[in-house]
Each structure stands twice: as C-alpha cells, then as structure tokens.
C-alpha cells in the first residue's frame, strides 16, 4: 500500500517504494497517450510562437528539450523580446517554483533508485505525469517505473511537437502585424483560470493583476512580473493564515 501523496507535500509512511517492472514503465508510457492531443497542440503553438519572437528553430527545440516546462516557456517568451537574459531566467525560476512541491512529494518514492535514475525522473517531471503517477500511488499500484514511463512519454510528445511547431513557423511568412504575441498572455490565461478554485486564489489573481498593472508603470523593465507575483502569493498565504485562525 502506498500512502496518498498529494500537493501538500506529505509523503510520510510511504511503503510503496516499489521500483516497478518494464510492464509498469510501459503502462506509464501508454497512459500519456490520452493526453497527447492537448500536449501536442500546446507544443505546436509554442514552437510556432517561439519563432515569432525571433528564436531559431534549433533554439526553439532546444528550449523544449532542455527546459521541458510549457508554462515557463510561454512565460519566458512573453518577456523575451523586451528583457535581458537575466530577467527571462528569473521569470522561468518563479514560474517553476511550484515544482518544489511536486519534487518534494515524489522524493520518498524515488529513494531506492540510483542517482542517475532520480536525476532523470526529476528532469522529466511534469504537472501531467505527476498527476498520473500520484493517482497511481494513491490507488496502491504506483511505482517509479510508471512515473518514468509517464514522464518520458510526455517528454517525447512535447519535444517532437515543439520541433514540428517551429518548422511550421519557419514555413509561414512573418505574421508580426497580426498581433500573434497575444498568444502568450492568452495561453497563460488558459492555464490561470483552472487554478482559481476558491476566494483566496481569486483574490491572489486580482491582486497580482492589479499590482502588475501599477508596477508596469512604476518599475523598470519586467520587474513588475516577478515582484507582483511574489507579493500577491504572499497575500494568499497571509489570508489563509488569518482566516484559518479567526
């Protein structure tokens, strides 16, 4: 029996540290097929849009293979043309902070693996494969082989479709005047809305949006993204603590 592991990062009492078999690896791979249409379409849009901000096809593909984080890649591209590399990396860092939660929550399941396997599992971890694997662990049939299978299935889909999107972007003429840069905020809006599940997260989103608007006028460069994001997320924690204890 594996204990339930959820986003609160609790992994105590884990007995299901099974490494699994080639069959569970294949099961992990196969489970990602259901997600393929969404992942592939999103990666095609990413590849296409990355070309529009001036990345080469090779750079576009490399970003997908080396970073492998869709939300962060879209976020980085939104600030790409107006910021230096340091700011792009900082935005990537903040968008990806949530992986600390996922990584902490799967850490107990990976303890039996070799250093190399653990690095591979961490490098290819994604929101989707995390969800698939922790559902399996919760049901008592999880294994690190299943997680690796799901990770690698999604990595393959994301990598191949990003390349296809980049090549598509190269084949088309310059679409700059058509405001396709709106792809970035709209894609992030699509990721944001499902995360707004209660009053506090709604408040956090509104505060972040408001602070960002004010900050974009008052602060230099794109500092408003990082600072308003951090400030609003702390407002969320403060509200939670306050409302829980009142």
């Amino acid at each position, binding site marked *: 029996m594996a204990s339930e592991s959820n986003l609160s990062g609790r992994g105590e009492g884990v007995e299901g540290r099974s490494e699994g078999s080639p069959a569970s690896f294949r099961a992990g791979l196969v489970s990602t097929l259901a997600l393929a249409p969404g992942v592939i379409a999103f990666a095609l849009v990413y590849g296409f849009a990355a070309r529009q901000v001036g990345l080469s096809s090779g750079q576009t593909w490399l970003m997908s293979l080396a970073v492998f984080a869709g939300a962060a890649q879209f976020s980085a591209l939104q600030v790409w043309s107006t910021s230096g590399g340091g700011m792009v990396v900082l935005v990537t860092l903040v968008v990806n902070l949530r992986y600390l939660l996922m990584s902490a929550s799967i850490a107990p399941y990976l303890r039996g693996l070799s250093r190399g396997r653990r690095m591979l599992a961490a490098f290819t971890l994604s929101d989707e494969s995390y969800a698939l694997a922790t559902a399996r662990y919760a049901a008592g049939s999880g294994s690190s082989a299943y997680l690796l299978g799901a990770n690698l299935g999604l990595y393959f889909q994301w990598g191949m479709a990003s390349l296809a999107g980049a090549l598509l972007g190269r084949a088309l003429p310059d679409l700059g005047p058509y405001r396709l840069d*709106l792809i970035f905020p709209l894609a992030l809006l699509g990721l944001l809305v499902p995360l707004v599940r209660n009053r506090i997260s709604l408040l956090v989103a509104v505060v*972040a949006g408001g602070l960002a608007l004010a900050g974009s006028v008052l602060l230099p460069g794109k500092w*408003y993204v990082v600072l308003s994001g951090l400030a609003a997320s702390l407002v969320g924690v403060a509200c939670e603590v306050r409302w829980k204890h009142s």
Partner: protein
Amino acid sequence: MEALLTILAMALVTFAIRFGPVLLLSRDLPPLVSRWLHYVPVAIFAALVVPGLLLTGQEAGIGPGLCAGLAGLFVAWRTHNTLLVIVVGIATYWLFRIAGA
C-alpha cells in the same frame, strides 16, 4: 549566443528546482512554504496576463486587448481549453480592432 546561454540557464534553474528536493529533502517542506508555493502560479500567471493583454501594442488603445481578455476569460472558465482561449482571444481582438477603426 545570448539566446543560447539564456536557454541553458533556464534549463539549469529548472533542473535545480526539480531535483533539489529529491536530492536534499529528508522531510516535508514547512507548511507555510508549501502553502506559499500553491499560490505562486496563480499570482505569476495573473501578473503576466493582465499587462500582457492590456498594455502591449497600444496603437489601438486598451479596448481590443481588454475585449480579447474578457472573451478568453469566458472561454477558459467554461471549457478549460487553452487552444480555444487563444483562438477566440485573437479573433475577438481583431473583431474589435476592425470594428473600432
């Protein structure tokens, strides 16, 4: 060259975040840290989305961007389909831009 270095640095920080807890953590994240991390995506996405829709390419004012955002918000809320959000958002932008011109 700078683009390449930026991409590699992005990869490095992302890997550090994903592997750090697996490598180092022998116990749970402190509850407050864990709660805070829950709110970071909502906050950072909102901080990118709102100015991104309202303030970029202001030659047409904020009207079309605002309409695109509201249409996208509605589609995202009803369908959770990001591709549809992008398509409807950009179509709405141009609809209002052309109608307003």
